[in-house]
């Protein structure tokens, strides 16, 4: 009897997975539904967070809005599904969301074993530590014997173990399911240190009962390329993600902004013309209209604008562009040419 119940459960789960995997043409499904279902962070200031009215804003949120703008010419045609770190990939695998824009690190095992693709890295990050000033710690190397709060099911949890092992230090890990609970426990004094991606540290620090009591240690202990994820096996949909990102980068490089995009449509620069769809038929190749990139910039803005508005100087986070500056300015963000 036990076996039978297990097997039935097995079957039910399997059929769930099946319905997700068989949705081959995600774009058609999205067009039929009339909106993009976007897996989002349940609440990370600057990256993805709903306000009191349920309006989502943030750097990752704007990526999904850009996709909606490209597909529907309307950045509001997105439904955001808040997902915790530990549920996010299952939700994408099973087809609950069409795309996952939720500060997720791409790694080799995630790319090869989860049945997922990571077509665009929209933020280059690295893991850091935050501690209370009163501890008098100025380097992560001094954390031997500390208790560290972290979110479970993340690469952070693994890097943490690696870092302490590599430096031959002892520590106690306290893992929580949600970022919110993790930070609350740290703030309540359960842990000496709180660790997550550096961007997340700045965002979570804003939630502290007294922001000035906490400092971020200088060490960055890992590479965290945060990427947009899609299901493997739908090349067209992955292309849309990849080129949405590249369109925003190219727009910034070419100086096309939300404000001047209409004016730029009359530009004689062939690169601008190809990007904004006045020359060539680049959008059609991925199942979108030819002015797809124009729509993205018009409704959402270029990469730099989205960055500054949500997490850069125009926001409370004030994160520097750093590695996320364009390649022309010494950063890693490199827009692949549209041609």
């Amino acid at each position, binding site marked *: 009897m*036990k076996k*039978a*119940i*297990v*097997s*039935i*459960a*097995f*079957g039910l*789960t*399997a*059929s769930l*997975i*099946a319905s*997700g*995997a*068989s949705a081959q043409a995600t774009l058609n499904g999205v067009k039929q539904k009339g909106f993009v279902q976007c897996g989002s962070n349940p609440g990370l200031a600057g990256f993805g967070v709903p306000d009191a009215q349920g309006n989502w804003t943030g750097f990752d949120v704007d990526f999904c809005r850009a996709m909606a703008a490209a597909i529907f010419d309307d950045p509001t045609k997105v439904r955001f599904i808040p997902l915790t*770190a*530990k549920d996010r*990939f*299952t939700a994408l*695998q099973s087809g609950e969301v069409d795309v996952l824009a939720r500060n997720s690190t791409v790694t080799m*095992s*995630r790319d090869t*074993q*989860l*049945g997922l693709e990571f077509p665009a890295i929209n933020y280059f990050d690295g893991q850091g530590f935050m501690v209370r000033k009163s501890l008098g710690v100025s380097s992560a190397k*001094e*954390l*031997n*014997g*500390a*208790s560290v709060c972290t979110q*479970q*099911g*993340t690469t952070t*949890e*693994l890097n*943490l*173990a*690696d870092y302490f*092992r590599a430096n031959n230090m002892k*520590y*106690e*890990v*306290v*893992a*929580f*399911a949600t970022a919110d*609970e*993790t930070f*609350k*426990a740290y703030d*309540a*004094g*359960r842990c*000496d240190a709180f660790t997550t991606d550096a961007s997340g540290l700045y965002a979570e620090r804003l939630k502290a009962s007294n922001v000035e009591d906490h400092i971020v240690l200088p060490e960055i202990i890992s590479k965290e390329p945060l990427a947009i994820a899609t*299901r*493997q*096996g739908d090349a067209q949909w992955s292309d849309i993600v990849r080129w949405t990102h590249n369109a925003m980068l190219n727009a910034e490089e070419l100086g096309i902004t939300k404000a001047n995009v209409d004016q730029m449509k009359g530009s004689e620069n062939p690169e601008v013309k190809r990007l904004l769809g006045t020359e060539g038929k680049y959008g059609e190749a991925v199942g979108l209209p030819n002015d797809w990139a124009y729509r993205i910039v018009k409704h959402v803005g270029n990469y730099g604008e989205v960055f500054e508005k949500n997490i850069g100087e125009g926001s409370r986070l004030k994160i520097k562009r750093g590695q996320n500056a364009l390649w022309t300015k010494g950063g890693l963000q490199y827009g692949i040419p549209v041609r």
Partner: protein
Amino acid sequence: MQTTVSQEAPKGSILYDPKVRGIFYQVVLVAIVAFIIYEAVTNAAENLQRAKIASGFGFLNNTAGFDINQALINFSAAGSTYGDAFIVGLLNTLLVSAFGIVFATILGFIVGIARLSKNWIVSKVAMVYVETIRNIPLLLQLLFWYHAVLAPLPQPRDSINVGNSFFLNARGLFMPKPLFAGDAWVIWVALAVGVVATILFRRWAWKQQAATGKLYPINWISLGFVVGLPVLMWILLALFGANPISFDVPVKGTFNLRGGMTVYPEFVALLLGLVTYTAAFIGEVVRAGILAVSKGQTEASSALGLTSAQNLRLVVIPQAMRVIIPPLTSQYLNITKNSSLAVAIGYPDLVQVFMGTVLNQTGQAIEVVVITMAVYLTISLVTSFVMNIYNRRVAIVER
């Protein structure tokens, strides 16, 4: 002659033999069920392959790469596998469930009896407790307990210190850890002897009481056997210069105390939440059980000169148990299953470790979920089995 004829099987087609027909339908049913299972499994495997998701149970032997703070077995990021992580989670679930069942039973019986107390204040306090606790979602209570436990505790540098061996701070309760040396087996033997002696003595005392009506201080003598004997052996060993038990006392480190044993705040919060919540339900079960014993029993026992405590212990509760046991079993099952809410407060139980971290790091949702469901099912079935045996023992014997 006639008798032999009637004993022969009736001649005719086996198609009309009800026995054969019965077997036939059973076989068909089994075949259909087997087919459905086969289809489900192969279908899942095929779909997983098509979605390019890794499948199979091989991941259990892969290196885990993450750490767990509360592990009953040795666990390290470097040397342990996902299979070890599963065992750590399972043991943590069993640990909190076992403690939860014991304490919830004790508190539940107190509450149930208190609700029937003739003392107005006692019964009203018990009523308010039951009505408040059982009407608030357990998850909220767990979060409350976690932050209520955590908030007033000091930081490690200002630990509450009792005799330089017990420390209490926001990282947990730190206690000396007993280390058993080679001679310690003598103490274990003494403990075993004490337990056996207690059982034998109780039987003897019971028979004596039945025969002569003489009462013995059973509980004190039992305590003497179980606790006194090992302690006596320990003192004797120590007098002869042996050191069977030494203590690893926690000492202050840079951030926190090092060494000793730790009770973590997550464990305490989860246990408190589970115990108070379930005790409210058990209290109602106990009250119902006691009310089901007819009033005549109490009247008869007081007519025989039993005190009200004796009446409760010897007459009412044993009869009430028949009513109490079946619903009590479901409360025990609830404790085990509700312990999975630990995920919210960072206690590394099976769901937190296995369905949380392991599932996410491996991405093998089906395998992990199936294993976890099978584990909870097994724990629940074992609990029910044990409780059913007990139920049969206390059930009324029809004469």
